[in-house]
């Protein structure tokens, strides 16, 4: 197999182009269709790691504290993310409980875990074990991590209870909101193709 590491094929239109050395912080675009080809951002590992670690802290908080509090006739009822999954399980809705826990807890945790492991190893100047399979795993984990959709659900459900009780946002709601934003920022900085290019350039 002959490698042509000086060439790049556009991901959108497959146009074959020669790679150029980019000035710091700039992006190379396809000359035919304008799609983004690669970036030159020497600090992307540091930034990605910072976002991912901050996101992990908020994700842990979001799982420990109640997400919403329901105040009705002087009494307060609250639920955590895990409590919500448990409630579904006890109602013989095991399939839905599994779906909810996988998409809001397991997959985001895997996504964050892999990102932090890979970026931390690169930051410390080492080649992470299983680099290629981990990068591929992230690609297949990401579609199933739906924290942002869950966040929208958290904003919609109080409206349904408006006439019935007062809904107070819990600590985890704010944590989850921050976690979603940081997760998006981390995913933006964690680009497998750019990471491969950096690995080779080393």
């Amino acid at each position: 197999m002959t490698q042509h590491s000086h060439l790049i094929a556009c991901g959108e239109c497959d146009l074959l182009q020669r790679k150029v050395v980019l000035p710091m912080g700039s992006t190379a675009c396809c000359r035919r269709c304008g799609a983004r080809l690669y970036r030159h951002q020497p600090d992307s590992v540091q930034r990605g790691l910072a976002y991912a670690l901050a996101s992990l802290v908020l994700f842990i908080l979001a799982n420990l504290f109640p997400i919403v509090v329901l105040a009705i006739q002087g009494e307060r009822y609250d639920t955590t993310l895990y409590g919500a999954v448990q409630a579904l399980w006890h109602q013989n809705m095991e399939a839905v409980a599994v779906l909810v826990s996988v998409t809001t807890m397991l997959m985001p945790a895997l996504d964050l875990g892999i990102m932090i492991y890979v970026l931390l190893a690169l930051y410390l100047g080492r080649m992470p074990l299983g680099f290629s399979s981990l990068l591929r795993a992230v690609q297949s984990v990401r579609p199933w991590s739906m924290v942002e959709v869950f966040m929208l659900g958290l904003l919609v459900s109080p409206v349904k209870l408006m006439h019935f009780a007062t809904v107070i946002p819990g600590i985890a709601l704010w944590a989850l909101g921050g976690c979603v934003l940081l997760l998006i920022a981390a995913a933006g900085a964690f680009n497998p193709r750019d990471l491969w290019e950096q690995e080779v350039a080393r």
Partner: protein
Amino acid sequence: MTAAPITAARCGLYACRACGLVSRPAQAMDALACARCGNDLYMRTPDSIGRTWALLIAACILYILANVLPVMETGSLFGTQTDTIMSGVAYLWTSGSWPIAVVVFFASVAVPLLKILALAFLLISVQRRSAWQSHQRARLYRLVEYVGRWSMLDIYVVTILTALVQIQSLAMIRAGPGAVVFGAVVVLTMFAACLLGQQRSVHDATYGLSGLTGADAGPPGGSGRGGFYFALKRFVSLPT
């Protein structure tokens, strides 16, 4: 840019989907892996069109059921009330929060239906090896992939409500059978979209290798294919 765009496929080169390395495969068609990251360059999923159809048809049947069966049962002092997805939307609309009603309607009713229709349309065009509007169809696929996840919204709303409203004497909210079915629709359409995505890489590989054997190495202008033809090989047909 001249009439003949120099693409990787036309040069018999293959760009790895995972790491982007451009390489020229050595000989055998089978067991090709990227030299740098080890990702499959040539992914053959047996009968993936048939399997995608099976998933889509199942999703279609379940979609109808999901709209008929109750997703939520509310028990209170005044008796039990069941809610389907549409009646939930209607409740939100009449209780004064129409923007949220619109959001829920799009996420739970419109998006799954449009996703099923879009995937069926893409699948038919793959089978017919059509070259029509290839660029737009590639965009449609990416849109479907991105928007599909938002239909989980209703499942999450039901989850939160069931967990919160468990006041024994006053009110109880339970998830209904519709929630299970609806969850299955979301999962099935995600798998279908994923399989269709693999379909595209099969054609990519075939195309990249056909350039190698010279079967398709003639002047591109002569074949009457426009530049957008190559956008087609994102996932659709590749007449040889």
